[in-house]
């Protein structure tokens, strides 16, 4: 869970600013994740593992990515879940 800052606890105006900032950031991020459905994504993972897959969806806590046609070093896995903890970054073109 995400804590609110100490200043925000004390000051309603600060709390509102922080809530607004958090909403803007989260909304843009969610729209971004939603727009990734069916895109080809490259995952850069720990241990220098790089794999490509077609993005499906993420859970809202951003713990798991559901993907299809995952090209692993030993072949294609048709349907897969990738743990976000294994991922450093992922990229795609628009």
């Amino acid at each position: 869970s995400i804590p609110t800052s100490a200043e925000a606890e004390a000051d309603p105006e600060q709390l509102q600013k922080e809530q607004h900032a958090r909403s803007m950031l989260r909304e843009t991020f969610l729209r971004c994740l939603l727009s990734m459905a069916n895109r080809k994504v490259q995952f850069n993972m720990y241990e220098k593992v790089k794999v490509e897959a077609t993005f499906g969806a993420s859970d809202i806590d951003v713990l798991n990515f559901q993907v299809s046609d995952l090209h692993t070093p030993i072949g294609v896995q048709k349907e897969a879940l990738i743990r976000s903890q294994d991922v450093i970054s992922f990229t795609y073109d628009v």
Partner: protein
Amino acid sequence: MNTCDWPLLGPLQWTSYVNKQVRVKAGKDEEHRGWLLTVDPVSASLVLVDFGLPGKASVQVVMGHAVEEVQVLQEADQETTERLQTSFLPPTPRRLDP
């Protein structure tokens, strides 16, 4: 700035990086450059956009837990800001009534 504490910064500080060109070090040896679109307040993950040819862009999502350092390179001008905010995201969904 040294931002091993990146996930702890909070919404107001993350917002101060939005629309800026940043260099992000992540994992052991990854480095990414791009315009910061947003930071997920839940996972502290950054979304960077790198513009290529007209109408083309590459999007990089760097997981918050992997961030080692975030450095601001420059501020966006009006045109870049607009391009960033409008170029690839679908239009804002209709506001839901409470």
